[in-house]
């Protein structure tokens, strides 16, 4: 083990009010892709199990929260740390044409994938302008 300090990609703390316990809240890195049927979000939330994810869509604001299970190997003490552990939280303002009942969420290997299909009635309608 070397004593060199390694420069790693930092996790960004979320710009949210402080926690009472003093633990950090991180902002998960997100990829967002727009497809023909809707929008897909992929959020990196390592250490978060599927049952610990909380997703709400209220007044166009999509909020994603993930509770982390701390990894503390038994009988061992932290000797060197490059990353911190904490819950994840991030919110996005969406357009209002998503059906909250049709949002699909799936967690695999610490990545949460959210699929938001656009509501059928909200598919773009073309309005033709007639010349008078």
């Amino acid at each position, binding site marked *: 083990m070397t004593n060199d300090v390694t420069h790693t990609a930092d996790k960004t703390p979320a710009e949210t009010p402080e926690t009472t316990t003093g633990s950090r809240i991180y902002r998960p890195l997100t990829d967002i892709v727009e497809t023909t049927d809707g929008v897909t979000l*992929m959020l990196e939330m390592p250490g978060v199990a599927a049952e610990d994810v909380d997703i709400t869509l209220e007044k166009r604001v999509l909020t994603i929260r993930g509770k982390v299970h701390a990894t503390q190997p038994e009988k061992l003490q*932290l000797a*060197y740390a*490059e990353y911190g552990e904490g819950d994840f939280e991030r919110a996005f303002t969406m357009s209002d044409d998503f059906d909250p009942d049709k949002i699909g969420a799936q967690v695999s290997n610490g990545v949460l994938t959210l699929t938001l299909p656009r509501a059928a009635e909200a598919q773009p309608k073309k309005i033709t302008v007639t010349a008078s």
Partner: protein
Amino acid sequence: MLYPTYTRRSDPFAVMRSMLRDFERTSPGRATQPVFPAVNVWQGDEAVAITAELPGVDPADIDISVKENVLTLSGERKAPGVPEGARWHRNERGFGKFARSVRLPFVAAEDKVEARMTNGVLRIVIGRPEEDKPRKIEIKAA
């Protein structure tokens, strides 16, 4: 910045040296690429553990090898499959091959290395060999 905590106990100048080294690194002209994955190292009497956050990496795509006292962690972060004609709004996550080596305080026996991946967090536990374990020395009455 985080510094190794164990250096503070024995050598009072270790932290200062470490800071100086850090200063050299951050000085202009020597910009370093961030290293992936970030690791946390845990120590105990019975074992040493290394944890790393590897979200989106399939456990089958991770290679862990131990040679004498160096543990190497390598693999690939694959880009998600996106249907054709998709438009990217945001692309914050990184992809590609990665490799990282950690020097252990002892020569690890191959059969004492155990790796487990839960929810994108990798945990490697390396058991200390018998001869490396701390021994209690009895004081004999004179």
